[in-house]
């Protein structure tokens, strides 16, 4: 089966003073559709840089990064935006909801960018809110939500367009243990029911318990690519 994400000899360098800093060194990775994987590693190991490249937010200095059969290295800004709009969902450490809009409108925004009809949007938004258990509070403003609710709205926003891939950067960093588990369980459920590929960048042990693959990065290189067996994994 063709991988949904294929990283091929990817190197990413950033200018630093008169020289350059190598954030990723010749990375080769493949992700199959439906994976629930995580990239872990200390600060500066290249987690976010790799997530940026997979999310078509950045381009590799050399090598190729194929996402949904599109080579991120060759995409124009507009094509990158289109890839994100149609196939990628993002979940951030901070929920980053638009404060003036309601829960419903925050989730709806991603669909407005796809020019979906009002009825299509309404159905999809309510479905997404149901997935995360917030179907009863579509009219609440972000300021009235708890931390857990806020992150669940962010998940609904990422999932409403039913993307093939969801990229989550430390999604539990601002949550207490109970909420963190609840959030990860929600994402795991969506992964299983919808077949969405989830890729996390995380330090959080609670998240790692649920992953079926953990890629350890260190100094911009893959130190270990670990497949977690079902008996070691939390469901």
């Amino acid at each position, binding site marked *: 089966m063709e991988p949904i994400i294929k990283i091929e000899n990817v190197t990413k360098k950033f200018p630093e003073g008169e020289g350059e800093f190598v954030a990723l060194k010749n990375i080769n990775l493949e992700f199959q559709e439906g994976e629930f994987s995580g990239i872990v590693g200390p600060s500066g190991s290249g987690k976010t840089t790799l997530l940026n490249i997979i999310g078509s937010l950045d381009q590799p200095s050399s090598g190729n990064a194929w996402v949904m059969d599109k080579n991120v290295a060759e995409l124009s800004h507009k094509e990158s935006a289109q890839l994100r709009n149609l196939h990628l969902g993002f979940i951030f450490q901070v929920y980053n909801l638009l404060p003036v809009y309601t829960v419903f409108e925050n989730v709806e925004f991603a669909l407005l*960018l796809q020019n979906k009809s009002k009825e299509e949007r309404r159905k999809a938004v309510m479905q997404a809110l149901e997935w995360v258990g917030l179907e009863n509070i579509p009219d609440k403003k972000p300021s009235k939500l708890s931390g857990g609710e806020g992150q669940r709205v962010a998940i609904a926003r990422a999932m409403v367009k039913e993307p093939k891939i969801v990229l989550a950067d430390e999604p539990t960093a601002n949550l207490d243990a109970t909420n963190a588990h609840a959030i990860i369980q929600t994402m795991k459920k969506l992964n299983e029911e919808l077949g969405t590929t989830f890729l996390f960048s995380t330090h959080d042990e609670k998240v790692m318990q649920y992953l079926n693959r953990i890629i350890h990065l260190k100094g911009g290189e893959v130190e270990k690519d670990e497949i977690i067996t079902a008996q070691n994994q939390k469901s």
Partner: protein
Amino acid sequence: MIQFILKGIIRDKNRSLLPIIIVALGVTLTVFLSGYLAGVFQDIIHQNARFETGHVKIMSRAYAENNEQMPIDLALLDVEELQESLKNSYPEVEWVKRIRFGGLLDIADEKGNTKGQGPASVMAISLFSKDSHEVERLNIENALVKGSIPSQNGEVLIAHDFSEKLNVEIGDEITYVGSTMYGSMSFQNFIVSGTVHFGTAGFDRGAVVMDIVDAQTLLDMENGATEILGYFETGQYDSEKATKISAAFNQSYASTDDEFAPKMFSLEQQNNLGDMLAYSNYMSQIIVIVLIFAMSVVLWNTGLLGGLRRYKEYGIRLALGESKGSIYRKSIVEAILIGAMGSILGTILGLLATYYMQEVGLDISEMITQSSMLMPSTLRAKMIPSQFYIGFIPGVCAMVLGNMLSGLGIYKRQTANLFKELEV
């Protein structure tokens, strides 16, 4: 999407309220000042119209050619009949007769010897006719310094400065020395009923106001007048109407070569007022452009601040897959909406303020030491058609310009930094 943007504008007070208030204030100022300037220039026109030109004026052809010399021998005759015919033909216009002429004033002492003398410029108007509005039109009541308005024939008003120069008191007798319209010598005594302040040096040095019947007698100008002035009953000068009436009136005398035939002139055909009107429009445009520029700078800053404040929101939208071009275009649509809202509000406020200043005005009579016949004691604005759209130029353009410039930052933004930026 427009609906989505509108919701954001309405709900986000930082995004909408402050910019709308600033736009509205700027637009109010632009609209009001535009109306105020129109009012100022209108006052200048009114001042000319009240004193000298009317909205239209009829003189004999010969008089018109030399009117600066006030040649009374070339005055119009049979003016009662002409005035009646004008009333019937143009009932929307008030027609008034006036005579302007010059002579010498002689003031005698108790023994009958001359104690003072001076050249006088006389304006004869209809002071006692029931239908006449000349006293109000010339603001005589407010311009009175001493005494009262003449109550009967034989009484006159003289310029206050002139009275002081000649040492004339209220109730004193003065003698006019001049000539009739046929060239004979003319002498007549008048009683000074009051002194007035004209507000212009030329008149204040030596002007006299008397009733037109007294002047007709004095000048042997029975049923005559040097000019007939027409005033639109609305009080407002209507250039198009004045031109039309003048053309129609003159057409009716086109077949005669008589140099005493009456000829009508519109306001802008007299005293270079046409150039003045064009100049006033030009000046008005320049002042409005300066205001537009000044307001644009202020509103541009508002746009810049708005763009900076929403840096994070734009980041989220980029991450969600909105292109930079789309964000940029929507920020401009938003600026147009905010600019339009502020402009509508500002235009309404500006028009209301102008309307108030047009109808009620600002009474400055207490601020000026002495009201004059020439200077109005109430400042007024004038509503003009351009006020309905002029405010939209700074209101919308400045907001759009501000957003266009601040929005350029969107294109410079590195999406690679989004994860880090959105963690904060």
